[in-house]
């Protein structure tokens, strides 16, 4: 052992103290809200929340208290299907919204397995399918807001937290974060570090709300819908490309098995995408093989929902009003109301 080396260590620590403090700031402030348990997340405005984490943590926090047994799965587009509206149709007091940003089929499968492992009953389920459901784009990205929760994936807890810790130092995130934390002022040089949309997450149902859009529509709906984006749809849009690949079948099979094991009353809704592109019939058939034709409801293409631009907040997200009507159609079908593929 070299005594001179041990005398050198305090100097290194002294020199490194700003960097040690910087590293410690991550653990003190928990910028991504992944280190500690939060009972309520609320608004994500100027924050960097991981929706998988929020959904998983909120589920764990309230699963015993509220005895969740009905779940809504999908991406942020599933936000149109709100737990309050659904509760009335399925006659269950507390459904849970288990969605994630751009969630895909492996995310949905992972969440269902997690629910099963945690001993919750899966009495009712809604799976909302969209263009992200069979895409791995975000799995392959380094996006920390999309990263899947280690509690229902193969990833270890250390690798999971290391990813977030590293993200604190990447792309100058810590500079923007500490600047905002200290001066509490939004600056134009912030890039994509923080959410600039004012989303809101409810507790305990974990619904995903769009208060800013609602407020803007309320103030001046004519102006809101005069945005050229709402009027630039292609008259005859091409059919969607095939989405379901061979590797997705295992996930579909697992989901089907879990539904069977829990005798779940489930519905699979292919949401009313703004672009009015029809879902590919082969993909519809594959879904029907696993979930049964009577459980698949396709709202893509031109229809009463997609024709009316007032059903949308923007190009990606349709409103709860549309979601409510779709659920009513599904659970209380009238003669010409249902869209199930039968």
């Amino acid at each position, binding site marked *: 052992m070299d005594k*001179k080396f041990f005398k050198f260590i305090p100097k290194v620590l002294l020199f490194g103290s700003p960097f040690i403090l910087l590293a410690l700031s991550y653990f003190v402030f928990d910028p991504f809200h992944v280190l500690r348990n939060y009972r309520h997340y609320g608004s994500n405005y100027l924050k960097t929340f991981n929706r998988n984490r929020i959904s998983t943590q909120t589920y764990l926090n309230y699963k015993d208290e509220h005895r969740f047994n009905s779940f809504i799965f999908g991406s942020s587009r599933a936000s149109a299907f709100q737990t309050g509206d659904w509760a009335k149709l399925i006659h269950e007091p507390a459904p849970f919204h288990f969605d994630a940003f751009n969630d895909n089929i492996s995310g949905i499968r992972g969440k269902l397995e997690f629910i099963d492992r945690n001993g919750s009953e899966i009495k009712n389920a809604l799976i909302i399918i969209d263009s992200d459901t069979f895409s791995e784009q975000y799995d392959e990205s380094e996006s920390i807001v999309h990263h899947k929760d280690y509690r229902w994936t193969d990833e270890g807890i250390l690798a999971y937290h290391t990813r977030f810790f590293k993200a604190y130092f990447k792309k100058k995130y810590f500079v923007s974060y500490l600047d905002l934390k200290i001066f509490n002022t939004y600056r134009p040089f912030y890039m994509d570090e923080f959410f600039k949309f004012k989303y809101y997450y409810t507790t305990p149902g974990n619904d995903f709300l769009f208060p800013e859009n609602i407020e803007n529509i309320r103030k001046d709906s004519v102006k809101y819908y005069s945005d050229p984006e709402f009027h630039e749809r292609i008259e005859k849009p091409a059919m969607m490309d095939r989405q379901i690949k061979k590797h997705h079948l295992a996930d579909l099979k697992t989901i089907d098995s879990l539904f069977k094991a829990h005798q779940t009353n489930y519905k699979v809704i292919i949401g009313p995408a703004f672009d009015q592109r029809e879902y590919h019939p082969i993909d519809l058939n594959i879904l029907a093989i696993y979930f049964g034709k009577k459980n698949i409801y396709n709202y893509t293409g031109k229809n009463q929902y997609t024709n009316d631009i007032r059903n949308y907040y923007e190009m990606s997200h349709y409103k709860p009003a549309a979601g409510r009507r779709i659920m009513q159609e599904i659970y209380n079908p009238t003669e010409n109301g249902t869209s199930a593929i039968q």
Partner: protein
Amino acid sequence: MVFSSFEFFLFFPIVTFLYFTIPYRYRWILLLISSCIFYAFFKWEYILILFFTIIVDYYAAFWIDRSQGRERKLALAVSLVANIGVLAMFKYYYFLIDNFNSLTFRLNGTTYEPRWDIILPIGLSFHTFQAMSYTIEVYRGHQKVERNFGIYALYVMFYPQLVAGPIERPQNILHQFYEKFDFNETRVVSGLRLMLWGFFKKMVIADNFATYADVVFGDVHRYQGLPLIVAILFYSIQIYCDFSGYSDIAIGSARVMGFKLMNNFKRPYLAKSIAEFWKRWHISLSTWFRDYLYIPLGGNRVAIPRWYLNIMIVFLVSGLWHGASWNFVIWGGLHGIYQIFGHLTRNMQKAVFTPLGKLGDLLQNWITVALAVFAWIFFRAENFRDARYFATHLFSESSHTWKEITHLITPQALFTLAAGFLILYFVEKMQERTAVGAWVDRKPRWQRWSIYYFFAFFILVFGYFGAMQFIYFQF
């Protein structure tokens, strides 16, 4: 493990701490295990390939040592064939098949499907060359046989220089694994300072310059004129800072533990001829080719046409060493032609530039840099088609204005690039005159620490973390 990764920022202090705390006799074991871990972070299977050459060369050296005449030559040949064979198998397999296919397709319309799915192990060319230099030196009688298998394995695997050099000679490094390096604060600080400078060059300069260069090289046919000129200039800075930054980190991290690795770069863009450029660029490789290929071919002690042929052979092989593609061969060939042309016109150059004094030096430097930069086109382009387009559209009418180019780079990045480049330029200029490290050492502590903090925070704020690999890893 990449030097500029989070993992290395944990790995390095842990290994260094253990190195100075465990008994001296176990240090080589620690370094060997650490080197295995370092390499396994890329892909653990790579270690198996590495150990194959280590075992072959370890025993080949004994065979060389105890034999004479033809048998000695045979033993060396076995070692060289094993090393070059591994290189050919993993690095040139697809290249050979592609060329074989283009030949057979022209002759009889048939092609051969590759039978194996082969991935090139990181840094294979580097440790293969280092291993070869051991058996060659044993053969020449310049190096004693290393009896400790672990120490020999460490010679090939020593983590600071495992994946991208400097390519060491056994005479320089092997004996160091037996030396007891006591802790020396001045040496450790000097090593850490060199690492800091290396990280700055890699993470701030190289990776930021890469963002624009990658966009243009990713789709060269969209650009002509000015954006291409900017891209190749940026790439020239990127590759220098990337590779010399890596070397600085390697040399610095070894120095912290007491090891002295050979210098790999000496400010090559300040050279006044291509011959001088190669005395300053990737020195460990140029001297390797000099010692083991150029001199055995006869060097310059032959008739001039043969000498020129020797130069061309060395540069063409050097090109192929860098990558399994004809683009690299062209790049090497260009440098060979530059060298020969430089020699042919040496009297004329003297007559033109010497009377101009410092201006003449500056002009010679600019011409050298321009030639080296032009050759980088072939080094960086994805394929020959792109390289040819790039080279022939450099001076065409510009497809983008300067304003559009700066928009592509983004104003924020522009500040980083300008600041990074200016710092690099002034430090290199200063290094040309004096030892910058010693200059810093003479400053009072608060000034020294201010300099270190400046660079450390510059890296933290403007550097790229872990996202980008070092360019030379692919070789």
